[in-house]
Structures are given as structure tokens and as C-alpha cells.
């Protein structure tokens, strides 16, 4: 019987504690370090794209959400340091299940799941994100792709996996 009164005392005590509510959208909670949100296509430090158009991510995707069409790089118009680049890269967010298998499959760490979670669209066409919506901008001071490079520098078909070349 007395436990009832103790319980009521606990509830009353909680009434005066600060609430834990976060008032979204005015206040937002930080995402965790490995949070799986919307994808981003990364670049190297010199401005070239990391994606070499191998479509391993499309092969790994269990929901068949990624579409990749590759094209050859030339030294006049170089997009990525390898042999090919992704000319068309689309992710259909109506199919994507945010599992991160594409991130695990990528040989150059190009496709990465970042922390952006506010993804609402109003039509099915809007749900298909194209390459220009997914690629990150060039780092400060570096030229945007396509770049004109000195021939003979980028000869490997799959570049080394590091951030700066």
C-alpha cells in the first residue's frame, strides 16, 4: 500500500525535472559518426573525382537502386585518375535501403553514406538523385572536373586508395 504513495512521489518528482524533448525542427540532434544517411560521391584533394565507374556498388546493391554508366577518361578531359569515370550515376532513393553495401564494395572509397536524413520528395522522378546532386564540390582552390592534366601522370587503371594523389 505504501508503495503506491512512493510511486506517486516519484511521478511528482519527475514533473519538476527538465524534459528530454528536442524541439525538432528548431533544434536538431547530432548524427552519430557512422550514421547511414544520404550518399555522397567524394573527390581527391586535387579536385579529381574518386569514382572510376566500375559499378561494383551497383552490383553489390541488394535493392538494385544504383545505375552507373561509365565512359573513358582522356588527358584533355580527365574526371577521375583511373581509366574510366562515371558519366551517369543515379541512385533511386525509393529503392535504396541504406544498408551501406555500396560503401563496403567501392574500391576507391568514392561512394560514402553521410549524415543527411531529411529526404522528402514530392514525385517519383524527384526521388532519383543524379550525379550532380550526389557529388561533393571541389576542395578550396582546386579546379572542378573535367580537368586538363599533363599526360603520363595518371597511368594506373585503378588509382591507389589514398586521399591526396
Amino acid at each position, binding site marked *: 500500500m505504501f508503495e*503506491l504513495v512512493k*510511486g*506517486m512521489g*516519484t*511521478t*511528482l518528482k*519527475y*514533473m519538476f*525535472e*527538465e*524534459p*528530454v*524533448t528536442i*524541439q525538432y525542427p528548431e533544434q536538431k540532434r547530432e548524427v552519430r559518426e557512422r550514421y547511414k544517411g544520404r550518399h555522397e560521391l567524394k573527390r581527391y584533394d586535387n579536385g579529381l573525382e574518386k569514382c572510376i565507374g566500375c559499378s561494383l556498388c551497383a552490383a553489390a546493391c541488394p535493392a538494385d537502386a544504383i545505375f552507373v554508366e561509365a565512359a573513358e577518361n582522356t588527358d584533355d578531359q580527365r574526371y577521375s585518375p583511373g581509366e574510366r569515370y562515371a558519366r551517369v550515376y543515379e541512385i533511386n532513393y525509393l529503392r535504396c535501403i541504406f544498408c551501406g553495401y555500396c560503401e563496403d564494395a567501392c574500391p576507391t572509397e568514392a561512394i560514402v553514406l553521410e549524415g543527411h536524413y531529411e529526404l522528402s520528395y514530392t514525385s517519383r522522378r524527384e526521388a532519383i538523385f543524379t550525379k550532380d546532386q550526389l557529388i561533393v564540390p571541389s576542395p578550396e582552390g582546386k579546379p572542378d572536373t573535367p580537368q586538363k592534366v599533363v599526360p603520363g601522370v595518371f597511368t594506373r587503371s585503378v588509382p591507389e586508395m589514398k586521399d591526396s594523389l
Partner: protein
Amino acid sequence: MELKTLIEVGIAALIKSGLLIGVLLTSFAYMTLAERKVVAWMQVRIGPNRAGPFGFFQPVADGIKLFLKEELIPAEADRVLFILAPIITVIPALVILAVVPFGPAIDICLPATLTVPFEWGACYKVPLAVSDVNVGILFITSVASVAVYGIVLAGWSSNNKYALLGGMRSSAQMVSYEISMGLAMVGPVLVAGSMSLQAITLSQEKLWNVVTQPIGAMVFLLAVLAEVNRAPFDMPEAEQELTAGYHTEYSGMKFALFFMAEYIKMVAVSAIATALFFGGYLGPFLNDVPSWLAGILGVIYFSAKTIFFLFCMLWIRATLPRLRYDQLMRFGWKVMLPLALASIVITAVFMAIAG
């Protein structure tokens, strides 16, 4: 009775009942908001705060939503009873408060220009109850019992066997706790020597009834929680999770009427509890100030005590889990009824000794 007195009393009653209904409906609306916010704060979160500052317009939003919902009547249901059931449940809730005095009688003097053409008396002593019948307690118990009909009819006319079961269980619960409630109400009647609530309030001038009859007060407060189907006795409300419940087939305005009935009954029984056991509108300074100020002070004291009881009802709801149906019935018949009888016997013995 003279026509003049009849008209005077009639106009006063009309104005008072209009005010009472207005206050009750507003308090019902803000009771729903208060419940959500108080229960939320007790659960370390904030209640609704988007529909206006501190959620002030949330009841308005809820009301608009319920108005605009589709009104469904099930195919094989008994149409007349289906529509009548919420009405039968709501009207007793509104009417119970007609006999409760909210404050001491105030002197109202009409301005001379108004009364001279009619040659009627200019000053009236207006009691602050809509109509203080001298069998007030009997009125309260009988009107409260009519509400049980509404629930049974709702369960029956829905043509749904689970709604029928829910209605039967709810009415059995209400009937068993009405007995303890009525017996607990006999204590203050013994002390005051009259069933009129005004007399009971005035008989507590020296000492509140809760001090002389603590068991009776506890029995009354718990029985009244079960009477309004409120936690932890809210089997009928919660049965939406388990089987059905008597208001399954209701939608829109009829459902709003059932909810209105419940919250208004909460307010009404809190008011009756303060009038019976906690001194009603009595408080300090009532006799030392002019009568209009005494009226306002009395209403403030009454409201403060009623609001305290409403807060306690919300507090209990936030804390205690629901009682199972057999636990509920066992509690009502084997614990509350003997305690209520014991309280009457003890009070009667004291009254006989003390005289």
C-alpha cells in the same frame, strides 16, 4: 407562487445555468489539454506545444477534427438507440452540478432605472447554486445512475458482441462503485442533518468533513474515480487495446460526446467531493468582506480545491497501472463497501455521543 417571484427565480436560474454550461464546456476542453500536458511533464517530456503558445489551441484543433470526421452508423445497428446513447451519457454529467453551491449568497442590486418601470424590488440575495434543492445528495446519486444507461445502450446498439461485453463490464463496474459512493455520501449528511449541499457546506464551518471522516473521504474519492471510468479503473477506456469497448463503433461528434461526458463527470465529481468533504467554498476572510467580494472569493476557493482534485486524478493516471476487471470488482465489493459502512457506523456513533 407569485408570477413575479417565478420570473425572478427563472431569470436567475437561466443566467446561472448558462454560465455553468459555458464554464463546464470550456473546462472540459482545457481539461483534455491539461491532461496531456500534466501527464507529459510527469513522464519527463513536454505535452502538445505546437498548436498555439503552450498548446493553447490544441483543444480547438481537436474539436475541429472531430467535427469534420465522417459519422458512421453500422449497418445492422439500432439507429435510434445508437444516436441516443451518447446523449443519455452526456446530459447527466452536465446536470449533476446544478445542486452544487459555488460560493456564498451574494447581494445583487439592480440599477434604479431598470426596476422602476416594473416596480419590482431592486435588491436580491442570489445563492450561487443553479438550484439548491433540499434533497441534493439524492439528486446527485440518481442522476449519476442514469449515465449507466447510456453506456449499456451504446454497447447494445452497436451490434458488435465485443462492444456489448465492454458495455456490460463498464456498467457493472459503475454500478458496484455507486454503492460505495452513495454510502460514503451518507457521512456528511449525518453531520449536517440535511441532504442539501448548501447545508452540508455550511456545516463544515468549524471543521472540514475530511478531518472527522477520513475513511469516508478516501472511499468517496476512490469510488468516484471508478464511477467516471478513470485510471486505474479505466477498463472501459483501455479495452480498445484488449477486446473492443462500448464506444468502438462511434466516430466524430458522437465519440466527442462520450469523451465530453467523461471529462465533465470528472470535473463534476471533483466539485462534489470538495463540497462534501473539503469545505466547499469556505475559506478565510469570507465573512469580513462585502458580499460581492465574498462571492468571488468563495468561487476562487471552490475552484482551487476542485482543480487540486483534478490534478490528483491526472497524477494518479500518470502513476498507476490499470486494474484487471476481477481485481476491480473484488476491490469494490470486498474492500470499499465494508469501509464505507464502517465509516457510516463510526460517524453515527460519534454524532449520537456528541449530539
